[in-house]
């Protein structure tokens, strides 16, 4: 049975904290862009964007990234990176500080794929990573710069993130 481990309020607070940390570690947020990994990473990006706007009165660009073509955890038959066309990001990331956002950080393969996609779209000055949940079990040397919540999990457990925009409510469950 699914067990709620993070409620809406805690999630809201975690996102606010990530925002503060982004401000703290980037003197000036002018050259920031947020790139959300589809699907829930995009909502994470938008929420951070709206908080930054409220706090600093600056709108920073948000892009969506669909990394399905880049995944290396798909079967070999399906995977042929050279053949896929990258979806255009719609924003210029050259010389920008890109903050990649996602809901859950797990093996790191999604992030690696996202970085591949970013690299093929331009040459960012820097890439940082913000995630709502880090659940461990990394298979690649990747670490998040901004973490909402560290949640120790076994590999058999599943983390389910619900967000208001798509699921009607904010919560994180484990099952």
């Amino acid at each position, binding site marked *: 049975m699914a067990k709620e481990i993070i409620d809406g309020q805690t999630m*809201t*607070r975690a*996102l*606010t*904290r990530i*925002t*503060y*940390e982004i*401000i*703290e*570690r980037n*003197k000036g947020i002018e050259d920031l862009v947020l790139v959300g990994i589809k699907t829930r990473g995009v909502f994470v990006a938008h929420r951070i964007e709206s*908080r930054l706007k*409220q*706090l*600093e009165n600056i709108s920073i660009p948000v892009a969506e990234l669909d990394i399905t073509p880049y995944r290396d955890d798909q079967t070999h038959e399906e995977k042929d990176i050279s053949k896929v066309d990258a979806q255009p990001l719609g924003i210029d990331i050259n010389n920008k500080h890109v903050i990649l956002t996602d809901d859950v950080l797990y093996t790191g393969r999604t992030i690696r794929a996202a970085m591949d996609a970013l690299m093929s779209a331009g040459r960012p000055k820097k890439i940082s990573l913000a995630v709502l949940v880090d659940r461990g079990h990394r298979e690649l040397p990747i670490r998040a710069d901004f973490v909402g919540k560290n949640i120790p999990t076994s590999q058999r457990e599943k983390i389910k993130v619900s967000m208001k925009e798509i699921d009607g409510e904010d919560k994180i469950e484990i099952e």
Partner: protein
Amino acid sequence: MKRYLILEDGTVFPGDGFGSSIITTGQLVISNNRTGIEQSVTDPNTEGQIIAFTIPSVGNSGINRDFYESINSQCKGVVIGSSSASTVNNSISFEEWITSLKIPGIKNVDVRALSKHIAEHGEMKASIMDTHDEHAIDQIKALVLPPDLVKRVSTRQSYPNPNMGLKIVIVDLGLKYSILRQLSYRDCNSIIVNYNATIEEIKNLHPDGIIFSNGPGDPKDLPKTIERIQTLQKDYPILGIGLGSLLIALANDCQIIPLPQPHHESSLAVKEVASGKIDFVNHNHSYTLDQKYIGGSDFIVTNICVADGTIEGIRHEYLPIMGVLFEPEAAPGPTDGYYVFDEFIDLIESVKQQEGIRSQWN
């Protein structure tokens, strides 16, 4: 016994005396707290104040001795409308309690008229006396309230509030015990020091973070504390609460101004700027930050009061410093503000993590 509440401007409010029968003088403050008279009366912030409570029928709920915010009572007098002689939980009555604390009180006062008068004319000195004549009013006018309120309420000796978690040093400017309750709940290993503790003394305690507590009086009376903050903030995460937050602001190029309508209310809405979330929290402050100076400082405004738009919370843009003007520990009031302590602990953890990363790379 007939007694009189006499204001500095000569206005007289008659009532019936209870509690101690001494003549008392202090700064008159109107409190719109719904509950928690126990907390207000023992709150060090009320040092030197005569508090007028505007709630009706005081004392029905009984006196809860777990609600003390300091060991001794702090206020100089209590003004109420109606009161009840018996309680729902058969504790001692409100009047018996005030008597045991040796505080003078006056009841059956038209607190509605009193609070309107203060709203129109501003906070002023007042006295509870047995007579009212010209002489009495002259006495009140002549009396100068002591400027060293913080010195009077701050702990003389350092003392620990031990636990197993983060080490927090609290600079006691008029600390409410509920702040310690919140830290204990979060396993913090706290040490409380005198307001005048030196930088060395604090550093030698090797804190993970420092809290500058709430307290009474005008922040400008504490220039030394402001200087110490300027040094300490380079090395430690800092949380300022109430008076503490004003000092943090003054240490970082901000200016403070008196509130047009002082906030003395146990449940007033505060909005978190980033998320738009509204929390109801306890307020007990007469100053706020001047909006004009925020832009030029390194602070961002994190919370504002919904009712009048004044600043209620700040955070430094790149140093781990945060401050709230309201009272996140509640006591009394809604518990919506507890999260501030979580945020401070997150702030400390995040600094530690960064340092960890840095040391791994260096």
